[in-house]
């Protein structure tokens, strides 16, 4: 059985016939070939697959592609451009907030959605929000510093 799904992916309308069991993560990666979103655990723990759906960070391994019908979906590609690193990305680079880079897209999307809503959060709150994503390389120190240092760029 296949179903038709249409949603906005990084500013473009996309549409495909998919099996209803296809996750949003697999759909983004394999149907629409946007491989910046990474699949780390497929049971909603690691957060590597986090994408932003209508403003909220969502585990794309726990959401079905067909549930995204009509939504606006943003991935790390949608938060990037070829010319320069965004302030959040540059902050990650400056603070050495990534090593292998596999979890990084999930941290970028999580942090972007969070900073957009709470640009003045305390370090404790930053750690609490980031504790939904697993990084195995950095020990989180650089990631927390990077997110805190990126706050000014999100203040109105």
């Amino acid at each position, binding site marked *: 059985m296949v179903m038709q799904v249409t949603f906005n992916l990084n500013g473009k309308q996309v549409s495909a016939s998919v099996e209803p069991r296809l996750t949003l993560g697999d759909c983004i990666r394999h149907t629409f070939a946007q491989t*910046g979103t990474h699949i780390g655990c497929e049971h909603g723990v690691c957060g590597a697959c986090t994408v932003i759906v209508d403003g909220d960070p969502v585990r794309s391994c726990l959401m079905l592609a067909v549930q995204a019908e009509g939504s606006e979906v943003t991935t790390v590609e949608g938060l990037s451009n070829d010319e320069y690193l965004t302030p959040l990305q540059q902050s990650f680079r400056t603070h050495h907030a990534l090593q292998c880079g596999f979890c990084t897209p999930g941290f970028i999307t999580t942090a972007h959605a969070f900073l957009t809503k709470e640009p003045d959060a305390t370090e404790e709150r930053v750690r609490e929000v980031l*504790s939904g994503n697993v990084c195995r390389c950095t020990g989180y120190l650089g990631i927390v510093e990077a997110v805190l240092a990126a706050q000014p760029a999100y203040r109105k």
Partner: protein
Amino acid sequence: MVRTPLIGQPIERIEDLRLLRGKGCYVDDIQRPGLLHAAISRSSIAHGIIKSIDVSAAKEVDGVHLVLTAKDLPQPTPTVPIRLFPNEKMIPLCQPVLAEKKVRYVGEPLAIVIAETPASAEDALELIYADIEQLEAISTTDDNRALLFDNLDTNCGLVYYFKKGDMTGIFESADYTRSEKFHVHRHTGVTMETRGVVSEWDAEKGKITSWGAVKVPFANRRILASLMNLREESVEMIEGDAGGSFGVRGEFFPEDFLVPHCARILNRPVKWIEDRREHLLAVSHARDADCVLEIACRKDGRILGMRADIKTNVGAYFRPTTAITPRNLGQFVLGPYRVPGYEASVSAMHSNKSPSGTYRGPGRYEADFFRERLFDLVAKDLNIDRVEFRRRNLLREDELPCAFPSVEPNPVLTELDSGAYEEVLDICLKEVKWDEKQHLQGQLVDGLYHGLAIACFVEGGAAGPRENAKVVLESDGTVSIYVGSSAVGQGLQTILMQIAADELELPLEKLRLFHGSTTYVKEGFGSFHSRSTVMGGNAIMLAATELKRQILEAAAEIMQCSANEVTYQDGIVIAENGSSVALEAIADRKLSYEASFANTKHTYTYGSHAVHLTVDPETGRVTILDYIAVEDAGRIINPLTLHGQGIGAIVQGLGGTLLENLVYGEDGQMLSASLADYLLPLATDFPNIRSISVELRRSPNHPLGAKGAGEGGTIPAGGLIANAVAAALESLGVQPLQLPLTPDRVWLMIQDAELARSTAAASVA
């Protein structure tokens, strides 16, 4: 203007520009036309005899192209070979790529399915029926109720023997001896990217290409070529980005044969991506060792001798790096200390658990827990301050180099190279404010017990035998550098380019570094044993030196003078008469050189860690208030990436000590096969971590002077935390001898100690 060297600068990583934009290329990102997908049927029984495997229904599933069991493979069934320290005794203990007559762990591959989509391949798995006659599952190192291998009369696969000095009479005549039994639990690397392979067969050329090689692509090419009966030139391994290795990922696994084998049969590209449950079941596990450690001292605490009887639970089979852990265990029990006499045996014990391999600080994490924990118990017995006990026994500089204990079989001679061990201990004590905080030791403040501890360690690095690097002056005047080292997320590209930039006196923009394919250089050895910076860096220095010589010669020819009348500076060749030639002018001469750096002596980074923590007696929860690691890496290439390695390694060490545990039930089922059960450290767990790197003593054994680093943060964590918990709970009589120190286990230790005290009180009354 004098050029500022890039070595020693916190250069932002070149890799980040891609990775931060989601433009990395990990193995699941590889797409090939006509790609098929593999899924592996795995044993749900820990130990048993295979009666039959029925795959007929699976073959009928829509979209399924191929289903193979061991019977369908070339005979004899290929096995995964040993990469490091192979020994003939291991040969019958190696893993068949698909289980043949017996299954020996839950997760062992039984069959492979190839289908149009990953989902249809997984649908077919559901229809594979394995009839397995169950045998007793073995999970510990002292259990011979059932034997894993018919050709052995116990479950002991191999015993290593270690020796140093003369042990005669040491224990008999010592003022003081003590023996203690310890256990370290099973845990492992758990990379964020699971394993994966994409393989494509080129029928015309008779060539196989595999993507997803990590860590040791050249070794794996050799293995795959031999298993597929191909010449090495007919096998290409392409690295891509690696979502972490930590030692566990990137060795040759059964799937690394099965996937290319199926691609060749079907003449279609095949992809296999491990899921998280498979990863926890079937990736190399680590640690899991029992130890009886004995010590003989003088009254003043000076160590006379140590003895160790260690059994390490290597799981079902010997695999490429299984031998490393027992060997390191035996060799690193002594750490940076002066121990005149030493004797040990380390038995590699088989069990019905996933086969083990190396994981960050292999054997050393365990050995340091045994030793440092025992030292605190001894210091207490002898009424000597724990710091003073370590000072009296740390090797002094005039005692270095100091030989490691000998090891048999497969002997290797190595020695601690250089170090100011006590100086680093003092820095660490100062940083943690040891003296100022002693009044808190064991105190109950606001319902929490405080404890502090200190530990010293050495870390091995720079394993040989060689590494290759090729430098090429390109037609546009830039220099390309090709290396056989591999990147596993540690920032290798940036580090090696810093070394190359300094050697060639060029800005980073003029350099391009290539790694990640077995076609770039003649041979390569990869990333393990903290070796890439030292080995790859020295190879680049050698190649660059020769390229500069060639450049001088070519430029001299243009300027019509002899090569000794010209000098090279910042990418320009200047003659004595003032004329000059830029690299661009000689770029058409195809200058290049491939160098190989060989070594026999390893590097030994060393240092001290200290911790101040609290224990909540109501919940058993351990909270780190301050953790400080000080280590001397000889020469720091990039302080930014080294600091990242330091912090990351500490948090892995703390995760392994306080959270992570690969738990098996008595029936050999794994009870922690999800990330909800196997707890990885999160951003809220360990916020108060500091890592300080110093440059006190370079390695005397190679030109670069750096020492392999990145594992030292993990190595002392277990012993250190256990000692601090013991210090915190001293008034309750809790002395942890086993890891992990999860809240439930700490709480139970407190209850047990209380019960023991009240029983003792009752019997006195």
